């Protein structure tokens, strides 16, 4: 008789009480934090051109979200508003020529400033590539990611000055082009940005 039910109830206590306390925290509203969850760039044909995830998700979830969202956004008509509720999130999107830029933010986040985040990113791409088009982003996808990382980090604006972001990127390009210069620079201790 002994032992047949050992481990029978292991674990459920934490789960249950944990859930209870979580519920309470939500009630009082302590744990909310605001951030961009992800950013997607896709074409009018629904081809994904850039994806940046600021929350941990499995590849499967990412694909599912992308599929659903691309469909939803592409189905919207031109004059509609740039915001929509989707699951528990808010989607802020804007179309530039053949590309849709689409950000997911949380309920409390500021939609308009997110719209301008998108615009600033477009400006950065435009300035860097010189009137950017979809092809630039396809062929230089790594650059699009680098620029984004200089601008946004962890879903928050890192540097909102266009000049400063471009300076950082151009500096990096300089390092790429002039390897001699680069080696010399790395050897020394002086570094100016």
């Amino acid at each position, binding site marked *: 008789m002994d032992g*047949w039910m050992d481990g*029978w*109830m292991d674990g459920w*206590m934490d789960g*249950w009480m944990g*859930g*209870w*306390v979580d*519920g*309470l925290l*939500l*009630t*009082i*509203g*302590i744990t909310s*934090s*605001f951030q961009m969850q992800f950013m997607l760039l896709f074409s009018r044909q629904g081809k*994904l051109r850039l994806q940046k995830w*600021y929350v*941990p998700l499995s590849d499967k979830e990412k694909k599912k979200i992308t599929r659903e969202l691309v469909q939803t956004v592409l189905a919207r008509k031109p*004059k509609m*508003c*740039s*915001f929509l*509720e989707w699951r528990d999130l808010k989607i802020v999107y804007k179309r530039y020529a053949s590309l849709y830029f689409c950000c997911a933010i949380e309920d409390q986040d*500021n*939609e*308009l*400033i997110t*719209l*301008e*985040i998108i615009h600033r990113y477009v400006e950065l791409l435009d300035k*860097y*590539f010189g009137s950017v*088009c979809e092809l*630039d982003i396809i*062929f*230089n*996808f*790594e*650059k699009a*990611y680098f620029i984004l*990382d200089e601008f946004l*980090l*962890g879903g*928050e*604006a*890192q*540097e*909102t*000055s266009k000049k*400063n972001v471009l300076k*950082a990127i151009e500096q*990096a*390009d300089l390092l790429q082009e002039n390897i001699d210069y*680069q*080696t010399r620079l790395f050897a020394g*201790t002086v*570094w100016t*940005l």
Partner: protein
Amino acid sequence: MPAVSKGDGMRGLAVFISDIRNCKSKEAEVKRINKELANIRSKFKGDKALDGYSKKKYVCKLLFIFLLGHDIDFGHMEAVNLLSSNKYTEKQIGYLFISVLVNSNSDLIRLINNAIKNDLASRNPAFMNLALHCIANVGSREMAEAFAAEVPRILVAGDSMDGVKQSAALCLLRLNRTSPDLVPMGEWTARVVHLLNDQHLGVVTAATSLIITLAQKSPDDFKTSASLAVTRLSRIVTSASIDLQDYTYYFVAAPWLSVKLLRLLQCYPPPEDTALRSRLTECLETILNKAQEPPKSKKVQHSNARNAVLLEAIALIIHHDSEPTLLVRACNQLGQFLQHRETNLRYLALESMCSLASSEFSHEAVKTHMETVIGALKTERDVSVRQRAVDLLYAMCDRSNARQIVAEMLGYLETADYSIREEIVLKVAILAEKYAVDYSWYVDTILNLIRIAGDYVSEEVWYRVIQIVINRDDVQGYAAKTVFEALQAPACHESLVKVGGYILGEFGNLIAGDPRSSPLVQFNLLHSKFHLCSVPTRALLLSAYIKFINLFPEVKATIQDVLRSDSQLRNADVELQQRAVEYLRLSCIASADILATVLEEMPPFPERESSILAKLKKKKGSGKLPENVNGSAELHAEEPAAANKASPPPPTEVLALNPTPPAAAHSLLVDVFSDLSAPTAVAEDHLSRFICKNNGVLYESQLLQVGLKSEFRQNLGRIYVFYGNKTASSFLSFSSWVSSSDVLKTQLNVHAKAVEPVIEGGAQVQQVLNIECVTDFSDVPVLNVQFRPQQEVQKIFKAQHPMETDAAKAKLLGFGVALLEGVDPNPANFVGAGIIHSKSAQVGCLLRLEPNTHAQMYRLTLRTSRDSVSQRLCQLLSEQF
């Protein structure tokens, strides 16, 4: 190919991308990719050591393939190798690959962390930035463990470059979000706050984001940030836009930073310091004033940035909810936006006004925009905007305008998009109930709902209307008359048939005097719908019929004929067949007295909260409720209690090993909301498991788990029943016994040993049942379990102080709980919630204080996750009022 290729172009990569783009079909693409993968694999495996450039190129190709949506299962090692390259461009590609394709392979994580550590220590800002970006992008626990101490050091180090500080701040923010327990507060926190004074606005922006997250976690540690934020904000708001040079965005001074500062201030109550407070008020006024100035640019970016700041300022004003003038100004501003030509602004104005509607200072001001909002409902072309309009109407609804708003929403429902119909139905149902002055209006409204959007009327809605009709005798006659008329429609929705069946079954007698709705007419009307309905509705109608037999003896024969017909008695559905058989027998053998007792009118339902609210909350993350009802509080406070609420006051659970068929058949009539129906169903399901095995779990709920282990020898059996208490506190008055029907008693002897009356939290007790099988049997004995969970402590005491609402409120707030307004149906009661933190655990507490001014008494109820805490808190608090 694009004309420009900046940096060092990787020609091989560009060719590959061109090839992929030229593929005519998916198959061709897959073929090309497989060819490339084979090529890369052979290069990586080849004897010849690859130079950095080739490695970078191939890693980049792999990344491209992955981003196309294909799986990549190699190349990680090569990417990690790139991390330790001295060439920036190779390092950069390596980090990008790791960030996008992070793999939880622990060996690799160690190598990656090692490379990051080297780069952080390199004192080369470009390398440090790459490393920090990688930590921020991956943000895994392993990385948090490795770098949670190092990143704050870099952030506050005097010699860190501005760009590095910015990266470090946001890197720390990400780590704090993913693994808050690993980011300890330390002396660096004070220095982080002072970054708000930094000269570099980029540093301030990044630091503000970080401080917001930290302040949400531990507000007290970052209290000083509020005053610094006000100062900074004030400097930005009053600056001429050119002062801020490149941080001016389309003539708006530092919009991102302004939004963040306003957001940070929303972590705190209004400043107590008067000077600071008036400075903040000035800022907010200036922002509101600027909205009235002519725009400095026609570009949409200008107005967006300006309005982003404005709306965040309004959010702060709403959060403070203390300055009536500002609130009303905010409302007027949003009122202008309601008619703006930009759809985005109209959407945001509707959204923001929802929160304004719940402030007592601005509720009336919001109401003045009702006509505009109703107009939006009719004219907006975008469904998401219309949805916002519905939300706002719901939020601004009160007794004065309920009739109009409900009528407009009903009207809109006729043409509303399918995607939002159910939500509108729920909202209408809630408003109609909440603001019903006379209940005939309520009944009309719900029947209209069913008529217009029957498919979207969930069970909760029609359950609720029945609950209300049964509880209010002034509306019963009207309800009977109205459903009778509604049922005349040639095609009516099944929900209407359900409501009609139930109500006529209960109150049909109230309209039977009129020859146009005589008993027979009523019956024929209901029965004309019978064959069009689903099984559950038919079952309900059969119950209505047997009720008719009691109400109207004159139609007994007619109904008996119906019950006797083959289509009933031999119905393929076992539930319907059983009802027909049993109801027929009942009507034949029972005397009028017995019939009258069995089929008596339903007793009133206990007053409880509307289950529709819960449904609405489930549907929508953020249901904004009218009249300061804190939506989230309401639902979440109820959830943990739900299990205990099943049958208050002494909560008992009774479960039947065999839920006998008549009980199941009547359950619809007995209590349509039976909270216990779900667990019983589970038990029933589990019971069948024991046909082919001897042990396992018989029943499980949030509170209790019942396990069985049985052994049999010839005609004797022994069953061990295990009762597991799943809560942290004791079950009191626990008892369990077995009962059998009279017939069964002659067939089966069951002897149950007594159990201890107390089961400690987390413990389980065992009960032995000795069983003797006398002869074959088909019935099943019933195991009854009863107990009282003890987490709740209640005390009734005499008031020692004058019973004043405000004083009591202040005391409770002072005690440290958050008061949840509008949760208790009785507005005089106080409901509070809070958490008691200790090093070992957090104890959630719910409390309810019910004053009875008549008797000068209070009743105090405490429910916490720990019994000792409930006891102590109850004791402490009961001496205070």
